[in-house]
């Protein structure tokens, strides 16, 4: 199996803190996967992401991005910016220029791309994430959802192989969340590895196919969504609890659900229930 990102025994401690933020952290993110990093506030999710894009440097251990060990030279870091992109939880942290249209092209101009190519890339990203209606508005006039999509567009324009999103749906209303997730779906369909950090278990359950559970800077478990949510000991240990659908599914009598994969969406759940009850002779 090929991996887009792997951490091997990474240790990192912020200056003036007693506890390390990451404690010998090791995990792997399969290439082309939709990965969710689960953990409470302060479990090290954001620190992990900053390490993955070379903003922070581990004090011990190594990081590999798209098969290349991370080297902190100017040239290698410039290459890394084109391979891995990070979307911050607070979009204000990364929106620099005055309008979405200009901001999207920030990174492209930084690498000296031709203006015609920049315009082409920008229009592709604007279309993909549906930013047409506000692409020329000043950034400070945008809603949070629009700002988040603009921040994602800026990262996406660099055409990275790996995109990391820190709490992408935090503070978003259901409509903005749906728009963002639809954008992520398109990005993933184009072959990009997408990693999100979240403590929204319902989102992780219905969206991710690979899960990493973090607790106080250590990786408690990693595996497919079925393995993690099915076993759910790591989630209990991290105090995260189960998503609603999984909780409902696993509360059904074991004999009834045996052999059936756990449903990931409400539609799947309904279909599975109809099938189960149909096989036992009842109707829904």
């Amino acid at each position, binding site marked *: 199996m090929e991996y887009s990102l792997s951490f091997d025994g990474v240790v990192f401690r912020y200056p003036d803190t007693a506890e390390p933020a990451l404690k010998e952290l090791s995990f792997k993110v399969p290439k082309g996967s939709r990965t969710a990093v689960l953990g409470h506030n302060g479990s090290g999710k954001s620190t992990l992401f900053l390490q993955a894009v070379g903003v922070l440097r581990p004090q011990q251990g190594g990081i590999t991005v798209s098969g290349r060990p991370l080297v902190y030279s100017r040239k290698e870091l410039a290459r890394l910016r084109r391979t891995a992109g990070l979307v911050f939880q*607070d979009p204000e*942290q990364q929106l620099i220029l*005055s309008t979405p249209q200009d901001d999207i092209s*920030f*990174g492209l101009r930084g690498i000296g791309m031709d203006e015609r190519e920049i315009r082409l890339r920008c229009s592709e990203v604007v279309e993909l994430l549906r930013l047409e209606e506000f692409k020329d508005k000043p*950034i*400070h006039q945008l809603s949070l959802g629009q700002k988040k999509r603009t921040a994602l567009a800026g990262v996406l324009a660099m055409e990275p192989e790996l995109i990391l999103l820190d709490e992408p749906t935090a503070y978003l209303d259901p409509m903005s969340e749906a728009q963002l997730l639809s954008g992520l779906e398109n990005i993933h369909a184009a072959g990009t590895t997408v990693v999100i950090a979240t403590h929204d278990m319902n989102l992780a359950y219905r969206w991710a196919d690979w899960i990493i559970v973090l607790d106080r800077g250590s990786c408690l478990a990693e595996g497919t969504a079925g393995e993690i949510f099915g076993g759910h000991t790591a989630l209990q240990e991290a105090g995260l609890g189960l998503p609603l659908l999984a909780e409902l599914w696993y509360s059904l009598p074991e004999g009834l659900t045996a052999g059936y994969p756990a449903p990931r969406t409400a539609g799947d759940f309904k279909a599975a229930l109809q099938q189960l009850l149909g096989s036992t002779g009842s109707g829904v």
Partner: protein
Amino acid sequence: MIRRIDACVSMNALRPLSPMWKSLYAALMFVLASTLHPVLQAGITVWMMVWCIVYARIPLRVYGLLSGTALLFCVLGMPALLLEFGHSAGGGPAGLVQLPVLPVYITAEGLQRAGYLLARVAACTSCFLFIIFTTPFYELLQVLRRLRMPQIVLELMLIMYRFLFILGDTAQGMLLARTLRGGKRGFRARLRETAEMAGALFAGTMRRYYGLSQGLTARGFTGEIMLPPYVPRQVPLKYSLQVYAGIVLLLLAQWWIVRH
């Protein structure tokens, strides 16, 4: 206020016009406003107001508020020009207030000087307002870049502009939270609270600064913020003709005034 201005700028009807053309026009009018006769300066004020209110469709209230605030500073400085204490050194006194200790005069020359100054300030301010209301900030940056303004200055202006709104939001949030929580009563308590808020705002600014620097690094900041290039735009003939005709008319009027 800055938010209202910004909203007006983004919706103004002259936005599609070339920012370079608007900047050059405003600069030229500024030069004329500083040099022509006061009557013509008043004409310039009205003309620039027409550009903003009629052509750019800036609400009169917003224009009046900003223009009034700017002129208020000038008016507040007027007493220094108008009033003379003690015995009049020259010129006929236009008014006289006899205080117990010393007389206070308003001279005719003082009044005339204040009037000329006000006309000039109003005309120059109206040129600035034209640029402020019709040209978005980032387009102004492009113009300045074209005029070879140092990159570091442009970057500083850009970051400050972004931070103005972020800080404004933070300060507004803190003020609202204080109001909702009742705040403190009394002048001294209010002063202490304001100082605490300023401290918290500073801490917030530093946090924002740290976050932004991380964001810049993550996006491949190479030590220079590359601004989008200036793209020339057309100016409709009706506007160009009006500008040329207006300037010629102003110059002719000045020539006539000087001759007579």
